[in-house]
């Protein structure tokens, strides 16, 4: 009976073994990265009902974040401003702008503008803006260079591992409270020593146990 398989067929078990191992490693690496919030969520930039430009308002005009997001220091939730806040200026400026038509309509009818949520935390993760901005976490640290965003997009993964990076080593990220809303803040050379000193003085201890956020 002739040989049914050529000699090099002996390679098949080895190849398939290495192939499955390599394939497994590849699959893990593939899922690890491509299914991660870093790949899926970062860069999410949905179209908004009003083409509001943070680049113009926060960047060029230099408005402080808290002019609109006024609750950020006292509430867990940083508010999206009511139409009223837009109309503070836009009842005077650009009153005929087409882009602002939905704002004027909302102001006239009382119907709210439905903004699309960009930064999404899961419902089982409880986060407080007030706790962060009062303890030296800048807007920029989590939201990126908003002052350069024509359309707001998600700059950081907002994943748990990403949160813990800072919670475990806050001295690498904190800034003085009067620089919270500064965009493009440059830390001084000795900032780690400064932060360590502040952390000790103010007793800043970011919790890293589960029940700090999950309940």
């Amino acid at each position: 009976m002739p040989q049914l398989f050529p000699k090099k067929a002996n390679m098949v078990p080895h190849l398939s073994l290495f192939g499955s191992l390599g394939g497994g490693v590849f699959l893990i690496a593939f899922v690890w990265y491509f299914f991660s919030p870093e790949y899926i969520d970062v860069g999410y930039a949905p179209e908004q009902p009003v083409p509001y430009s943070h680049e113009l308002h926060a960047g060029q005009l230099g408005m402080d974040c808290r002019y609109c997001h006024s609750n950020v220091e006292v509430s867990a939730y940083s508010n999206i401003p009511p139409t009223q806040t837009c109309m503070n200026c836009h009842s005077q400026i650009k009153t005929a702008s087409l882009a602002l038509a939905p704002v004027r309509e909302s102001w006239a009818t009382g119907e709210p503008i439905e903004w699309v949520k960009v930064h999404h935390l899961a419902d089982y993760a409880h986060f407080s803006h007030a706790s962060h901005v009062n303890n030296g976490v800048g807007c920029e640290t989590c939201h990126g260079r908003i002052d350069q965003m024509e359309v707001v997009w998600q700059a950081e993964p907002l994943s748990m591992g990403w949160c813990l990076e800072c919670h475990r080593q806050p001295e690498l990220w904190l800034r003085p409270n009067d620089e919270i809303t500064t965009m493009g803040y440059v830390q001084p050379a000795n900032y780690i020593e400064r932060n360590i000193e502040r952390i000790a003085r103010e007793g800043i201890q970011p919790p890293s146990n589960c029940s700090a956020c999950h309940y």
Partner: protein
Amino acid sequence: MIELPVLSDAELNAEKPRARFWRSMSHLKNDAEYQASVNSEFMPEAAQAPSGSSRRQFLQLMGASMALAGLSACRRPVEVIVPYSRQPEEVLEGVPMKYATGMNFRGVYKPLLLESHQGRPTRIGGNVEHPTSRGNAGLFEQGSILNMYDPDRSQLVLNDGAQVTWADFVRFVNEYRVTASRRNVAVLAAPSSSPTLAAVKQNFLTAFPNSRWFDYRAEGDDMRTLGMQMAFGAPYRVDYKMGNAEVIFSLDGNFLSETSTDHEFITRGYADSRRVMDVGDTMSRLYVAESYYTTTGSMADHRVRVRSSDIPAFAAALAAQIRGTAALGTPFDDHPVIAAAAEDLIAAGPNALIVAGDAQPPEVHALAMALNSELGAIGTTVRFLDAGTEPITPQAEKIDELFRDLRAGALDTVIMLDVNPVLDLPELADLLRRVDTTIHLGTHVDETASSVRWHLPIAHYLEAWEDGRSYDGTLSASQPLIAPLYEDAKSMIEVVNLLATGLDNTGYDLVRQTWRDVLPADKFESSWRRVLHDGFLPNTPYPDVTDAVSLRPEAISPELPVAPEGVELVFRLSGQVLDGSYANNAWMQELPDVITKIVWDNVATMSPKTAVALGVESNLEKGQHFSDWLTLTLDGTSITIPVWILPGHADNSITLDLGFGRQIASSRAVRKAKWFGFDTDHKIDIYGQGALGSGVGVNVSPLRANFDNLTLDATIVKAERERYMIATTQDHGVLNMEKRPLAIMATMSEYQANPNLAKDMVPTLPKAEDWDEYPTLWEDRAPATDLAYKDNPYYQNQWGMVIDLNTCMGCNACIVACQAENNVQVIGKDQVSRGREMHWLRLDRYFISDSYEIESDNPKMMFLPVSCQHCENAPCESVCPVAATYHSPDGTNQMVYNRCIGTRYCANNCPYKVRRFNFYNWTKDLPLTVQMVQNPNVTVRSRGVMEKCTYCIQRIRKAQQQASLEKRNLRDGDIVSACQQACAADSIYFGDLNDPNSRVVKMKENNRRYELLPQINVKPRTSYMARLRNPNEKLEPAPTSA
């Protein structure tokens, strides 16, 4: 394998039990059926696949749904943020606001403090500053929020069943009013204390001169007030000062009942009189003679089982003993308890108190007051307020007159305001159809609504401007927290005003109009705002007339005949659905009854002996209770109702709960099976089959003649029907620890002889481990001593709880509070009967008999609230394969829902059986309005996730964040758990064990403190304080050797 020392049989038997603790008749018998159902962690049914489908089918379903879920999860859901257009003043998104308001509860105003999230009220608490509430809200107040979000609430004005609008009704009224002076009108209204309603009512009576108005109460007359009318000639309001009482005798008087209008402060006062902190403290003594085993009976030091019909004779015998007059020839003349109690009451003198019950005739109430007066107690333990009530005509007479007029055709208009009389008087339906104009203002399209011309939806009290007077008379105003969910919903004030004046004024204007006369004219606006802010106007109680009252002679020795033999029926308000007004409230339907622990049903409750005499049974079969049926017939009306056997119930007496068997129309579609029957969710969707309260239980009200709460004339026969499954939680979560007490009860004299008896009674570890020295506990002997824990900010606070069983009266308020705070879901009768109930806090009710022999005639009773004990050595933590349940550095045991994969190992390993598993996605199909009641600070759990008490971790975190923002440390009392907040008896203490001055540490140091199952060394954070009894030594001599 680690060898753990186990107790040998000899050692076990050597532990001589002092008393036998048991939870049900099945437990007492302890047969194979019972053993089978309690020995495993889950009930036999609970661990099976969800309703109806086999395990294989379940797996197929899961596979299919996984595939579908995988596909649907590829898309990121788009969420929108909807800010205000115009920002309301003072509203901060994410920061809940609190508003004072109040509700009308059985004619008495209950002051409340509401939490509202951007205009969405979610949680009800008592008004902290109000003199009657002081921060406590009973279970009906707390549950009432779900009445507003009830998806089956009446939403539209109906004219002959057709949908019309409020404007149509206004037009109709204006035409109708043209002939107002000639109209013969009868108005049946819910009792109310509102000054504004009184004012518009006056206008109405002026506009309609041939009208009569009466308050309609489904439960019948307020016997206590009728009794006062008899005793003093005027219907004075009784204000018991329980805190001053040393000896209390209750004649069928369930004064601790959660349905009573003065529940919070009676409970608070009674708890004060029972509070014992050390051996030197004294405690009041309570004697109870009653038929049903009530919460008051459970607190009794001496309880006599006696038919309610025999109470008048019993009262006469007690009076004779107290007065030292000759025996009257009643069967109770020589009753040992009467003799001893009389002596005790005389010795207590001004600090004595005799209370009569709702089912008793006015004569008994009058005699009780006469005795109080003779003992000198009037002024100390009982005071009287003049609530301005007009002399009362019994409701039965007024209804008789109404029926006479209706039959004669003498009435052309009947108006029913926030009442549902057809539920109690079914023959009224046909009579109403013959009347020219019938108007019904109600919460649902219910029994009454279907037989009237005009049905109007009523606005919930959280949607309307109202006012009222609390039990003590304090004038209070209540503001709405939300615009009416349904445009046409109007308050009673607005509807009566429209009828009276033809003007469609708003409730706001009407209420302010009334208050203009109350508040100083020059500062009206500022005073009005103050009243709204506080919720009440201080120093406006009803006049105290205690010193002015004088007993009328007929009250001193009223005629109290001896009742004939026979089986009596006693009717009472339900502790779940009240008079039926809470019947469509999922929380209340699923609330286990205080005593029987039955959910989603009402039953005919009787003693074991009566059940034998009637030939009926109720047995445990495969973990579920099945009961026989009884047919009760009275004057040609009959009902058929399942039976329930309650140890300690009086013989020859049957107790029936009102308010069940409702028929409520629903406009929502009935849910059907989807996916060719593979989707079984419709089986567990309690909102999916029309109104959830429809057809639950049996309406017993029509059986009553003349609203009598007591009758001996009924014919009672066993009905030949298939046995009926009753869902009760009394055998759920049984900690099968025979002979080792979990609930500890001792007498005062035993306690004085051995102050540490609680610790001596619980078993100890074979190798002693001294772990109860708080607060150093965590520091030295914590299971995790690594730096990661100690280096955590939460480490500084170590949370703990103490529950004082001595003042826990099992009123259920904590359970509803927990449910509202923690988004605990309702699952329906079928699921509860399988042991899948979700309540994080269960209130175990134990019967206690003195001997170890089988004896169930008159057991004692006590309550043991059990939720997660937050063990230091938590057995659940070590078995979780994914560390979803873990130990927080603050010493609490927490669940991380997003980690949980639903192995249920933790529940298997929990010695206290307090973990709850989401066998289904209970929230998936909640109606939109019901979703609105969810607390946004607590995760809404999904299918396949374990959950349990978290010590209200969201409140802890919130207080910590607040303290951090204010740059201060946490203070004792910053954090109040939901159950603690609800507890009117102040039985629950929660706080930081690291703070040596905190109340919880003081309680932990108390000598009555003990832990559940200390012998297994799990080191629970929740401790209990042993229950004490204060028996009369003449009746129960103290044991000679301690």
